């Protein structure tokens, strides 16, 4: 793109805020009562986090993959692409994330078990935020309930909930699974920012928090313990 520095975020915004939020309203109306099914899936995932069985990770990954695939098809491809030609590319990315979840969770035996430390507590909190609190933000900002964005149905809460769970995925940090969610947060945050929506901070803050926690988590556990005890000792030194 020639003279790219002369473009601002608003130059890439193809639609009005009214059209964008009406999209959710029409979508919610068309797929009702899938919202209830999606919330039940979210609750099921929450319950599965406490299950110790070997199949736990596979079940969580399959449920998450189903949500990503549904959002890709039903929202991004069928609805969002009618006002944003880039949405078909977003749909491909969401389908790719669904496949990655199936591959890492279903075939490679990833498990999702919150640890009783800072990262574990934060991960569950992020998931609960996306499931319960995030849908309330729109109505609290004055938008009608009919435009509510629900986990498993709308992209933002689905992405944020997934990022929370990925923080407690077994083994090393699942960076390959975090790339698409983090990228989506940047895209969604920029879109909302260009529209002047105050909830633009939600994907931005969620992505920043997850990124920081993932980096923290990428240090070996022993190294982290050493760092924590060293800082505790330093704090206790008069």
């Amino acid at each position, binding site marked *: 793109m*020639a*003279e790219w520095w*002369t473009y601002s975020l*608003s*130059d890439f*915004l*193809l*639609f*009005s805020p009214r*059209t964008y939020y*009406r*999209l959710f309203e*029409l979508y919610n109306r068309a797929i009702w009562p899938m919202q209830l099914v999606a919330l039940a899936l979210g609750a099921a995932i929450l319950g599965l986090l406490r299950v110790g069985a070997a199949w736990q990770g596979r079940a969580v990954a399959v449920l998450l993959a189903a949500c990503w695939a549904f959002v890709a098809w039903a929202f991004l491809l069928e*609805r969002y692409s*009618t*006002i*944003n*030609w880039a949405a078909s590319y977003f749909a491909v990315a969401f389908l790719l994330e669904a496949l990655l979840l199936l591959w890492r969770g279903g075939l490679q035996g990833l498990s999702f078990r919150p640890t009783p430390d800072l990262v574990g507590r934060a991960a569950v909190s992020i998931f609960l935020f996306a499931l319960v609190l995030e849908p309330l933000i729109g109505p609290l900002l004055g938008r009608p309930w009919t435009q509510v964005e629900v986990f498993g149905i709308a992209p933002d809460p689905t992405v944020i909930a997934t990022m929370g769970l990925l923080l407690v995925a077994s083994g090393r940090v699942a960076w390959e699974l975090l790339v698409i969610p983090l990228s989506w947060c940047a895209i969604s945050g920029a879109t909302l920012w260009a529209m002047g929506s105050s909830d633009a901070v939600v994907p931005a803050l969620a992505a920043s928090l997850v990124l920081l926690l993932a980096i923290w988590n990428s240090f070996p556990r022993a190294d982290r313990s050493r760092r924590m005890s060293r800082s505790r000792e330093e704090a206790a030194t008069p």
Partner: protein
Amino acid sequence: MVGLGTWITFNVGNDGEARDSCTEVMRAFFAAGGRLIDSSPMYGSSQEVIGYGLGKLGRPESLFSADKVWTSSGSAGPRQVEVSRQNWGVPRFDLLQVHNLLSWEAHLQTLLAKKAAGEVRYVGITTSEGRRHGEFERIMRQHPLDFIQVTYNVLDREVEARLLPLARERGIAVIANRPFQEGALLDRLARYPLPAWAAEIECRSWAQFVLKFIASHPAVTCATPATTRVDHVRENMEVAYGRLPDKATRARMVAYVEGL
């Protein structure tokens, strides 16, 4: 003199209520004597929404259809133009423009060939926000253009220096895009009262003040404000019938707005 832009405002997807609302805007536009509607494949569903509206309105004969080609692939241009034509539901476009000079060499060649074959009446190029004016001027000098489209309003006046005089000299029609800076200019002006002397040029709103400034430049053929409201389109169209500012008044308009 006053056309209808569709950037953002007509990109409403499959929302039936919003499509009907756009149709009403078009109905008011044609009823007030409007002719030129401008769109682009870049504008999401805008072309389809225009086609929907034209279908409902029985394709008014006064329509002057202006669209663009916008793809980095030169060979994909003809196919894109055909899809655009089908979206509009018109037998042919009156004007086809190379959008923002994207791959302009290949597309201009295609469009000029289409013009020679009678598949389009006029050919042009577009830019916005002052981008690539040097290259734009070279193309204007070297190619047989019928139209150019540039950003021009009471604050964005860079084109007055070279492009508008050159358009006059070469007999090229000019479409002024972003007359309201996508609403930002009117939002800013709304904080101040319209000067009393605006009544002398029959302006009763800031929108009319801004449009009269654009339309009164001797090189400008048409401004393309976009709106979702019927009352706004009627207000915009009044500009085409009232008194226009002379050179001295235009200077006064600039000084007043710059002084706010």
